[in-house]
C-alpha cells in the first residue's frame, strides 16, 4: 500500500509563525518520505535546537530533538549502530553552521549515508532574530541593532571543501522542487547536504519571499516579477561525478561548483550542485574492516546466551595477554 503525506503527519499543534518557510520544508520532507515508500518506523529524524529543531515533532517517524548544534553526531551514532535505518538530520543555520559547524565538516569527510537539511533563514529564529552565520556582511535585519559586522559562511562551498558527496540547495516555497531534491538526497549513497533557503517572515525582513521571488524586479515587458532563484537543471547543468571521468573532468566539475556557490544577489541557484557516488560510504569502509558489519550490525547483535550470560567470546584476546 503506497503511503501518503498524511501518513507522516503527527497530529500535534504546530507552533511555527504563520507563513514560516519551515512549513514548506516540513511538507516537502513528508512528501519525499511517502514517495520513497518508507514506513514511519524505518525513519529516524534528528534535529538540533531552534524553530527548525521542532520539525521532528511534526513528523510521524522516530523523532529525536537533540542539543543545539549536535544533531549530526547523534544521527551518525544511530546510523552506524544500525545502518538499516533511514537517518535524516535537520539543523537551523545557527545550529548547523554556527555552534555545530565542526560536526558538519567532519560528517563530510566521513561520508556516512545520512541526509542533512539546513534551514537557512539568516537568523537565529528561536532566540528572536540575531544574525546567523549565513547572514551577509553589512546586512541589517529587523532585530539586530547594527548591520551585520561578520561576513557569511558559504554553505555550498564549505560542503564541497569538507568532502560532502551530495550538495544541493532548495527553496522552502518551491515545495515540489524541494521534495524532488530530498528524494535524490535520501537515495544518495553517502552524506547528502541540502541548504534550504527559508524565509523567516518574523525576523528576516531582507531575505524574504518577495526577495527570492523578485517582486522588486518586474519584467519591463510582462510586468511580472523576475525570480532571483533559478533552477540549475533549467540550465542543463549536470552535477554528477562518474567513475569513468578523467581527473581533469572531475576538477572542471569542482571549479564549476565553486563558481555556482558564489552566485548570489539576482542569481541564486537551487538544485543539485554536486553528486559523487564514486566515494565509498563510511559503512562500506567499516564493512571492509569488520566483515559482518552490515549483515550483523552493532544494534542487532545478540549479546547474551539463553542463560543470560555474555555471548561474546574473548578467549583469543585473553590467550594473547596471558602468562
Amino acid at each position, binding site marked *: 500500500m503506497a503511503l501518503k503525506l498524511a501518513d507522516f503527519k503527527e497530529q500535534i499543534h504546530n507552533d511555527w509563525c504563520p507563513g514560516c518557510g519551515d512549513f514548506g520544508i516540513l511538507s516537502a520532507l513528508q512528501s519525499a518520505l511517502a514517495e520513497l515508500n518508507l514506513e514511519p518506523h524505518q525513519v529516524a529524524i534528528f534535529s538540533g535546537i531552534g524553530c527548525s529543531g521542532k520539525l521532528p515533532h511534526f513528523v510521524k517517524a522516530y523523532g529525536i530533538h537533540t542539543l543545539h548544534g549536535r544533531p549530526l553526531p*547523534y544521527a551518525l551514532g544511530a546510523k552506524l549502530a544500525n545502518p538499516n535505518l533511514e537517518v535524516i538530520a535537520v539543523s537551523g543555520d545557527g545550529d548547523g553552521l554556527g555552534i555545530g559547524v565542526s560536526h558538519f565538516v567532519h560528517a563530510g569527510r566521513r561520508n556516512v549515508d545520512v541526509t542533512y537539511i539546513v534551514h537557512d533563514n539568516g537568523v537565529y529564529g528561536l532566540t528572536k532574530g540575531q544574525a546567523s552565520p549565513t547572514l551577509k556582511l553589512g546586512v541589517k535585519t529587523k532585530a539586530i541593532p547594527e548591520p551585520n559586522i561578520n561576513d557569511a559562511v558559504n554553505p555550498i562551498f564549505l560542503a564541497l571543501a569538507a568532502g560532502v558527496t551530495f550538495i544541493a540547495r532548495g527553496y522552502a516555497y518551491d515545495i515540489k522542487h524541494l521534495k524532488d531534491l530530498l528524494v535524490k538526497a535520501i537515495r544518495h549513497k553517502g552524506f547528502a547536504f541540502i541548504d534550504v533557503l527559508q524565509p523567516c517572515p518574523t525576523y528576516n525582513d531582507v531575505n524574504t519571499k518577495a526577495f527570492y521571488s523578485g517582486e522588486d524586479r518586474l519584467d519591463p515587458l510582462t510586468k511580472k516579477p523576475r525570480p532571483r532563484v533559478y533552477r540549475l537543471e533549467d540550465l542543463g547543468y549536470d552535477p554528477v561525478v562518474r567513475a569513468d571521468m578523467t581527473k581533469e573532468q572531475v576538477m572542471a566539475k569542482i571549479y564549476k561548483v565553486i563558481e555556482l556557490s558564489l552566485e548570489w544577489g539576482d542569481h541564486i541557484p537551487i538544485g543539485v550542485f554536486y553528486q559523487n557516488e564514486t566515494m565509498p560510504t563510511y559503512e562500506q569502509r567499516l564493512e571492509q*574492516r569488520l566483515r559482518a558489519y552490515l549483515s550483523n550490525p552493532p544494534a542487532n547483535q545478540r549479546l547474551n546466551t539463553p542463560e543470560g550470560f555474555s555471548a*561474546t567470546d574473548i578467549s583469543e584476546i585473553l590467550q594473547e*595477554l596471558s602468562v
Partner: protein
Amino acid sequence: MLNNFTYMVGGQQGSGVDTSANIFAKACGLAGLEIYGKREYHSNIKGMHSYFQLKVNSQPVRSLTSKVDLLASFDEETLAVHYDEVSTGGGVIYDPKTLDKKITSIPTLDKIVVNRLIKRLEAQGLNLTIESLIEECRRRGVHTYPLPYDEILTEISKKSEKKFSELARMINVLAVASSLALVELEITYIERAIKNVFRGKAKAVEENIEGAKIAYEYVKNHYSASFPYKLKSQPNGKRLLLTGNEAIALGKLVGGCRFQSYYPITPAADESIFLEARAIFRLNGKDEVGSIVVFQTEDELAALTSATGAGLAGARAATSTSGPGFSVMVEGLGWAGMNEVPVVVTLYQRGGPSTGLPTRHEQGDLRYALHAGHGEFPRIVIASGDIEEAFYDAAQAFNYAEKYQTVVIHLVDKALANSNQTVKLDPSIVRIERGNLLSEEDIVKVKSAGGEYKRFAYTPSGISPRVKLGTKGCVFWNSGDEHDELGHINENPENRVMMMDKRMSKLELADSEIPLGEKIKYFGSEDAKFKVVSWGSTKGAILDAIHHLSEEGIEIGFLQIKMLCPLPSNDISKILEDSKVIDVEMNYSGQLGGLITEKTGIKVSNYIVKYNGRPMFQDEVYQSLKDVVEGTAPKRRVLTLGA
C-alpha cells in the same frame, strides 16, 4: 631475599622504557611470579624522563612501596631523580660513561631536583657529578653495577654485522636482561618474554634475544653473586598480565559494548586503540562474527552524543575520556538523562584542573562526576578499585545503563589505567541484563491489547519500556525539552512534576535493587575502632597498609565505596557510626569524606590526602594510619612521596 623485589627502570621518553618494563613483567609472569607495576611519564613524546616501577612477589601484589631494590638506568637523569629511592642492600645499574657528567648540565632535570641534589651532595663533601651519586649509593650500602652499554653494543654489532648506531635503541633490552641476570631469573623466560613483546616481528625478536643473551652473560660473569635479591620461577596457574586500560576494554567487549566513540586523550585513548585493534570476535558460538564500531570523533561532545545515538539505536554504547574531555561532554549528559538513553562514560581521572597534570594521577573528579550538567537528572556513578574490578565493572555498567535507562559514569584513574598486574578474570560469569526493552512482537501485543506505545509512559517504577529506533509498529520522540509521555515538548506544570518524579525515582529503584556487594566492600573487623573510607585505585595501598598494621596488632577496617551515586548512605552509616573515620583520597579536599558527611552526617576524624600526581605507596599510607591510631597525626595529612 627470594621472590620479593621492587624494580625500577627509567630513561628518556621514546627510548624504550615501556618495552623493557613489559619484557621484565612478562618474563616474571611467565616464570609464575606475580606482579604489580606503574608507569610514570611526562606529557611529552621524546626526551623527558619516564620510568616504570614494578613489584614482584610469589603472592599476588596490589600496591607499591616507595623503596626500590634495583634501579636500572638508561641515562643520567634516571640516576639523579631516583638514586635516593634505592634501599640499602639494593642495587643500581648505570652507564659508566656518564660518571663525569655534571648534574647541573642535564637539560631536562627539574630545577627543584637539581637544587636538592646540590645541597645534599655539598653536605657530604661531594662534587656535583653523577659519580658522586654513585659514591653516595656505595656509602649507603647500595650495590653499584656499571654496565658499559657501548661496549656491549659493539660486541653485538660485531656479531650481527649491524651498525652500532642502528643498535643504540637496544639499550632498553640490555638493561632489562642485565637486571634479570642480577636476580638470576632463568634466561628462557626473558627469551619468551621478548618473543611475546615483539610478536610478529621476527627480525626484532632475533636481534633482541641475541643482545639480551650477551648482556645477561656479561652481568652473570661480572656481578651476579653479589646481589642479594633473587627471583626464582614457581609453578602457577595461567594468569593475565593486564593494564587497567586493557581490563576495561575487555570488560566492555564481554559486557556487549558494540559502539565506542572517543577523542584522543591521556590516559583514556589506549583503551579505544586496544578495542579498535580487536574489533572482530566470535559471538554466540563458532560461526557468528561480532564486531564493535570504534568511532574517533571530532571532539568529546560528538563522542558522547554519537554514543547516545548508538544507544538509541539499541547498541550498547560507551565513550572514554579524562577530565578535559568530560568537561566538553557535559551538555550531552543532561540530554541522555532527560531522554533516558543508556550510555556509559568511562572517566579516567588525571591531575586537574584544566589540562593539569596530563599524564599524572589524581582522583579529583568525584564531585564533578556527581554533579556535571545543569538541572537535575539521574545518573549512576561507579568507581573501580583495581584492575580486576575494573573489568567486571566495565561490563556491569551496561546492565545498569540499560536497566535504569540513563547515563552511567564509570570512574577510574590514571594510576589504574597505567598500572599492570597479574590477575585472573572469568568472563563466563558476566551477565547481560538489557532491562525493559520491547521487541517488534511485544509491540504487536501492546497494540492488540488496545494499547499505544509511549516511550515515556508513566509507570510506578519510573522505568518506561524502551524500543530500539527502527522497531516496527511504533515510533517515539525525544526532546531535551521537557516532554510528555510520547516525547513531545510539554511545559505543563503537572506533566513536569510527573516526569521529574519518574526520572528521579529511578535512582531509588537502582538503590533498592542493586546488591550491596556491588556498592560497597568492607575489609577487616567490623568492630575496628578506626575505619578507613576510600574509593578507586587507592584500594591496594590501603589494603596492604592495614594488613601490615594488623600484623603488628593494630586493627583498622576499610570501607571501599564503589557506588557513588546512588550512594548507599544507610549501609555506610551502619558501618561507620561509632568509629573513627579516616578518609584516604587522591585529591586536595577529601571529596568522598565531604560527600559522606553530607549524606550521613558522619564526620571524618582524619584526612589523608595526596595531590602531587603520584599514586599512594603502601608505606606512606601505613605510616600515616599508624600515626592516626597513635594519636600523633594532624587532622589532615598530605602525602608527598613519588618522583
